[in-house]
């Protein structure tokens, strides 16, 4: 349940971290719960639990649809926190990062939101629309409660800002390899591997790479390039979105898929 411990342990084992990313409540809270349990049981090392938002500007079509479905199902931020608390009670031990667009946090109040997140059992926050320049207050409030505010770096991030981000970051760095939004892609872009190298030179913080990862081969080459782990999101949502009438029926496939990704994290040379 300790983020740094989990990542440290994986690094010691020479293994990459796998963090599946799921928007909670898509298409229903009960399915999300089963999905999270499946992910935890199929090799996930950490979980990214997204709170659905009305205007997810950093997300692509798959996750936009996820958010829309979750919101139509009436899911609120409070529901997401309660669900996490429930999973903890059940015994879920993996580190969990809560993803929330900034207005959800701002609307609740920064301190209140952090407090609730901590109590529900989260280890950190990911805020897709909060660059480091705007993050000061949330960094303070999160740290005060032992939460990591995960910062992102992208191919467009300048050297100067990279320095600043690395300086403020804790837990891990979220490395966004592509220019664009979330969404499964067929190929990794060369810019991704380059970026890992650039960041690696600056910091020993774990680097988790996200956006566009959909295959074990992707995972393997990212780890080879120096990443400490991968985030896989849309590729999972894509699987159950194909059978929305009966999403549970896709859980075995998702489990296989996650296992195969996890397998790739172990193949690190």
């Amino acid at each position, binding site marked *: 349940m300790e983020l740094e411990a989990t990542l440290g342990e994986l690094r010691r084992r020479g293994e990459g971290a796998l963090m599946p990313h799921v928007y909670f409540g898509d298409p229903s809270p009960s399915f999300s719960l089963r999905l999270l349990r499946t992910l935890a049981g199929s090799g996930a090392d950490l979980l990214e639990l997204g709170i659905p938002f009305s*205007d997810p*500007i950093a997300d692509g079509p798959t996750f936009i649809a996820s958010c829309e479905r979750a919101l139509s199902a009436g899911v609120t*931020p409070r529901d997401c926190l309660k669900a996490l608390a429930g999973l903890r009670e059940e015994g879920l031990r993996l580190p969990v990062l809560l993803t929330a667009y900034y*207005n959800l946090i701002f*609307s609740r109040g920064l301190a209140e939101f952090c407090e609730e997140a901590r109590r529900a059992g989260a280890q950190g926050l990911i805020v897709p629309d909060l660059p480091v320049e705007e993050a000061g207050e949330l960094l303070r409030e999160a740290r005060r409660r032992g939460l990591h505010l995960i910062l*992102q770096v*992208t191919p467009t991030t300048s050297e100067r800002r990279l320095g600043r981000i690395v300086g403020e970051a804790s837990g891990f760095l979220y490395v*966004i390899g592509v220019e664009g939004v979330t969404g499964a892609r067929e190929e990794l872009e060369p810019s991704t591997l380059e970026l890992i190298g650039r960041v690696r030179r600056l910091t020993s913080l774990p680097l988790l790479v996200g956006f566009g990862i959909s295959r074990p081969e992707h995972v393997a080459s990212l780890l080879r390039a120096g990443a400490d782990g991968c985030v896989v999101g849309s590729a999972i949502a894509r699987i159950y979105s194909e059978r929305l009438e009966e999403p549970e029926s896709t859980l075995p496939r998702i489990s296989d898929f996650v296992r195969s990704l996890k397998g790739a994290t172990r193949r690190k040379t």
Partner: protein
Amino acid sequence: MALKGRFGRFGGRYVSEVLVQALEELEEAFERLYPSPEFQRELGILLRDYAGRPTPLYHARGLSELTGCRVYLKREDLVTGGSHKLNNTLGQALLAKRMGKTRLITETAAGQHGLATAMAGNVVGLEVEVFMGIKDMERQASNVKRMQLLGAKVTPVTTGSGVLKDAVSDTLREWARSSRTTHYLMGSTVGPHPFPEIVATLQSVIGRELREQILEREGRLPDAIVACGSGGSNALGAFRPFLEDRRVRLYFVEGGGESLEADNSAAAFQLGRPGVLHGALMQLLQDEHGQVKPSKTRAAGLNYPGRGPEISYLCEVGRVKPVYAFDREVFEAVRITCRKEGLLPALETAHALAFLLNHPEEFDRGEVVVVNFSGRGDKDLETIMRHLYGA
């Protein structure tokens, strides 16, 4: 307005990390290029000869008789394309060109801003892609055709409710993909810093002209200026040069929609609270959890749940009075303005007129009141005819 990019607590730059660099470059380029004499010269010529500036300040006798005030209309409807939008797009298109961009992307609701972007793109020589909510494309079909004729690619937005808010989101997403070659030509005083500042600066030409014209006409400043708005670009354009003149009352008229009840309005100052959307902290329609609520008004150009950071700030500190007009008042104001002045206002613009016509308690007899006549209503012709004549 302490911090750069902040208006009081409003504003900021709440965007994906991937966009920060583009915003910093834009800020730097604007600060460097905009004040330069060549840029000013080139923009000045385009504003004069292409856009048709200065626009007149028209003493509207019919409306004056009706209201008992000396009503002036600042004729932004006469700008090429039919609204104030071109003031902004010409400036940003020039900027983008000088920054070496090859393409403009933007979003549009009423179509006026998309049209103005397509025009500016053609004048300056940049490709243009316009994101437009699928519902707005239906409602403003003639502007879609105009944009297509001008060679712009119009991309339908089907996410969310298929309206302006969703189009902004999709344009931001596309910009995240393409910001190295592409400029996002923001259409109003919204979005992350430096957009609100750039757009307000470019639109301020309205107020500078207005100030000179009213001084020449009346020998004094106006008692009040009334402007409609959502993001606030036409209002800030008119207001900015008067902010220090505390005796000039400034009214910002938002879309009241059908009523001030939940989900029937776009009146964010009445029904919203501060929140973060599309990169900035601003007055925002949202539910208790911070989910953004869709706005509702018959005026596509006012149909946005957020008020830009600067107008949010000015209303918060009391310098600008936020008011609203209901749809039915707006249609009636269209009818009256057609009959009394021979001018067909845009539905957006008619909000400002409706407020003036329906709030005699705000204006003393003989006061000098300027309405920023932000656009013409040709684009709304079908909607207006259907509403007024049922066919």
